[in-house]
């Protein structure tokens, strides 16, 4: 994640579970994990970073937004070509079949959605990175952001088959750069989705 401090966190729209239960192993102030979380939280700072996806993906070997969901990827299945539809079947270039496979409509939408989410939810992202080293987010943008395929047979209703759909849903994962000190975040992947 290319970090250029700007903006401020605002209202979040990410999905939050409401099925709370009593904690099984509450943290105490003696817990060294808590001390480390406070240190990382402070290092990450109050201002959300600006994400340049191309720079992020080039800088981090684990990042794959453009490789797996980039706007330039071919949509429809083609022999010998890595495609969005082909991922449903584990075709050429994919390690195994997936139940959903989507691409961003264009770089402008991708950049705006990712940075909008980070801006709105930075305090939550910052806390998750501090405690767990990873943040996963998902939300409905309320407008089209991409297109792709769901596996129509994913719940056992028949054989695997790719069903096309445009989508307004977004999922993403942000991590700490391993070993970074001070702590630095990077975007593992952000992608339009058929299922939140």
């Amino acid at each position, binding site marked *: 994640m290319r970090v250029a401090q700007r903006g401020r966190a605002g209202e979040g729209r990410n999905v939050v579970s409401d*099925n709370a*239960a009593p904690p099984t192993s509450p943290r105490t102030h003696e817990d060294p994990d808590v001390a480390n979380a406070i240190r990382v*939280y402070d290092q990450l700072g109050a201002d959300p970073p600006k994400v340049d996806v191309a720079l992020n993906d080039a800088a981090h070997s684990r990042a794959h937004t453009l490789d797996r969901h980039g706007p330039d990827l071919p949509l429809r299945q083609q022999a010998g070509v890595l495609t969005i539809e082909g991922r449903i079947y584990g075709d050429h270039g994919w390690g195994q079949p997936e139940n959903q496979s989507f691409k961003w409509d264009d770089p402008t939408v991708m950049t705006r959605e990712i940075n909008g989410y980070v801006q709105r939810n930075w305090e939550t992202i910052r806390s998750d990175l501090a*405690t767990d080293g*990873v943040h996963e987010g*998902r939300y409905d943008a309320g407008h089209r952001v991409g297109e792709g395929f769901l596996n129509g047979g994913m719940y056992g209703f028949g054989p695997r088959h790719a069903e096309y759909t445009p989508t307004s849903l977004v*999922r993403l994962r942000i991590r700490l750069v391993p070993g970074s000190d001070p702590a630095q975040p990077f975007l*593992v992947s952000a992608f339009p989705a058929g299922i939140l």
Partner: protein
Amino acid sequence: MDASQIPESLRARMAEQDARRPLEKVRSLLRSHVADTDGWGEIRDELEMTSQHSTRPLRQSLEAIDAVLVEELPAGTLLRMVAGDAGWPLDDDPTDAGAAVFLRKLADLIGSVLDDSHRK
């Protein structure tokens, strides 16, 4: 350390994380370590990155998987979680039983990552 030194938003997030039910903890694990990966090797890489920061989330995830596998859940819950949240292919057995097999294998992998982490 004085607990009052914990920033309020961080303290609130910790409390929210700890209060999640096992099912929600497993869903979060799947979304953060399995979804959009390209196989077991990449899942292991994700788990190892987490363990390098803290083993706590993985230990909590193990407890949550164990709890979910013995919990009486509505039919289709495990299948929707593994095939949907994780996007994992269950073509050979697209049932709750098939999803449970996947979760047990994932739990074994987490245990292996934790063992390696403790040896370092």
